């Protein structure tokens, strides 16, 4: 009987969401960014963020941030930001002010970079106990959402580091690899080990399960993005696919497969939902950022 309980939960969840399956999302490859403005190739890109027409890519293998103009046609190289403080960027976020935040994989600190590429200091969370261990970050407006795996929490911070709220991660979270924020201020977390999603609706003090464990749908999910339509995109890194959910956790389908050519994925490391129904995927294993249409 105890073994049956999770199966029944999954079944109930599948039945409840079956009606929504009709609204399956199809990802249409629109193109890829492989190089910077000078033709230098991306290497191990692990982060991507968009604000308006500005896109930033954490080009980890080259130790820099590469910026692009996002147009209806895709990504057009704009410039690069290389500062000595950030030697291995693994995640990026862009504030409404166009300030770029870059998480350095080596120091695991968040660097503040002006739009013209100047290092303006570190975002050091203040007003909370302990030293955060930052795994990922996201931005909505001028609020920075920091995934603090050391503290087992999400910090909602001002750009200057002043933390104004926290969201607790229950111990049941296997390992939180990434987070996303939707237009309503709801926060979503992907649990790589538990192979499930968690959510904190705006104002919630703690994460709660959004889906049951989904071992049939995920191999090792590590990245998540939320778009303006309330859809969630989750990158299954080791499985080379994108799994799509509604904001209520309803399953909307799995797209793409492991591969090298455009339209395939190899170790997708980061996702970003962009205006116009676009989805940007930074692929660590293919040294590129692919752009997909989602409508």
């Amino acid at each position, binding site marked *: 009987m*105890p073994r049956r309980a999770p199966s029944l939960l999954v079944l109930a969840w599948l039945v409840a969401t079956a009606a929504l399956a009709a609204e399956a999302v199809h990802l249409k490859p629109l193109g890829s960014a492989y190089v910077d403005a000078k033709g230098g190739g991306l290497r191990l890109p692990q982060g991507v963020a968009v604000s308006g027409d500005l896109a930033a890519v954490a080009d980890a293998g080259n130790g820099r941030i590469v910026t692009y103009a996002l147009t209806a046609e895709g990504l057009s190289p704009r410039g690069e930001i290389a500062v000595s403080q950030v030697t291995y960027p693994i995640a990026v976020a862009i504030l409404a002010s166009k300030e770029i935040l870059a998480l350095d994989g080596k120091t695991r600190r968040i660097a503040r970079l002006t739009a013209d590429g100047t290092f303006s200091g570190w975002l050091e969370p203040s007003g909370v106990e302990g030293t955060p261990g930052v795994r990922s970050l996201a931005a909505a407006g001028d609020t920075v959402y920091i995934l603090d795996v*050391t503290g087992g929490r999400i910090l909602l911070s001002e750009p200057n580091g002043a933390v104004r709220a926290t969201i607790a991660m229950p111990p049941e979270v296997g*390992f939180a690899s990434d987070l996303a924020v939707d237009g309503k201020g709801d926060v979503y977390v992907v649990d790589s080990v538990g192979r499930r999603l968690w959510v904190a609706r705006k104002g919630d003090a703690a994460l709660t399960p959004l889906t049951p464990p989904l071992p049939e749908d995920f191999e090792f999910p590590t990245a998540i993005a939320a778009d303006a339509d309330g859809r969630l995109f989750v990158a299954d890194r080791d499985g080379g696919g994108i799994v799509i959910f509604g904001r209520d956790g309803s399953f909307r389908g799995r797209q793409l497969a492991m591969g*090298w050519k455009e339209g395939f994925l190899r170790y997708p490391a980061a996702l970003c939902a962009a205006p116009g129904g676009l989805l940007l995927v930074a692929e660590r294993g293919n*040294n590129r950022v692919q752009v997909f249409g989602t409508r």
Partner: protein
Amino acid sequence: MATTARRLALGLLLGLLASAAAAAPPAKGDPNAKFKLKPGASGKLCLECHTGFQDTLKLPFVHTPVKAGDCADCHDPHASEHGKLLEEEPERICAKCHGSMVPDKAKSAHAPVLQGKCVQCHDPHASPQKAMLKSAGSALCFTCHQELGTAIQAATHKHIPVDRSCLGCHDPHASAPARALLKKAPPALCLDCHKQDAPNFARKHLGYPVTGADCTSCHDPHGSANNGILWASVHPPVIKGMCNQCHGAAGTPDALKLKRAGADLCRGCHSDTFNMIQSKNQVHWPVTDRKACGNCHSPHASRTAKLLAAPQGQLCGSCHQDAVKRQETSLVKHPPVESGDCVTCHDPHASNATPLLAGADQFEVCGNCHDWKTHSTHPIGDKVVDQRNKNLTLDCSSCHRTHGTPKAHLAHFDPKQDLCVQCHADLTR
């Protein structure tokens, strides 16, 4: 008058009962009735051919139906769909009388019991041992648990109850309250013998209030080469009795409280490891989380080297379940993956090479075992562009997936049909 009426009623009732008994169908399972055996045949007929059973019946412990000569309780004398003319599937037949030996919500159960393989331990007919066990005492357990039996024999510091019988601590069928078929969960089980108020108990534990702890986090209950039957791999401060390196002072209210949380506690002594981690681009993320080192290491003692909380493959596989599944379903097994020796290729703490490689790059890591550098090979390296993606150069993972694939040679695609033409499209047949 009343007495006469009562006698008549009683006589009528007895008469009714007697006639009902005569009219009733034969009792279910009664072989005499079921097979219409001649009077006196039950218990004798089978033995006319199966003469060897005369000796079996002389053994001290005989299965009740065998003793009663009810061979047909378990066997059909004419024909059966199951081996040995059993009336039921071998995995189910014992449960017909004995029911389930696993209690509801059992925390652990013996695999043969779950599988209905009762005859692995019991002789269904008779045995010199009580409960018709096939061998006496712990010898029976060691027929399967050979490795454990050898370790127990080799232990220089014995746990005395182990030498007596496994059944002192374990229930051979299942345990409702505890893991590992234990009769009780530690420490309750251990405290049945080891009295916590004994002066020696407090002295051995340096005055720390350990009676709420799981004794097996430090002690190997089956015996050990170490004093105090500590596990094979012991954290040096534990051996030296320096508990206050990590915990409060003995005798204080916070004696067991850790001096610092997470990795900060370990950093004090293991600064070299932490400096190495800090110098690398990529960290194994569990190192940074709340449990930090405790995700993979036992703080006191462990049966596994380097104080690992479990054997390496099992430990890594507890999070990286997809890698385990990939190896299990792989056509070809990559030896380090199959043997669970993950650190042959990966650094479990941090690395500059993706994915946490235990070397500068794939060429170095793979080259440690594979001698491709010493003979001609397909061009690979930083100057050989991958025809599928101009932003990639060819390396080992261009064609192979080290944890496993359904194809030969751990290839991503079928090497005979599809692999080469991924790049050499003009050669497609």
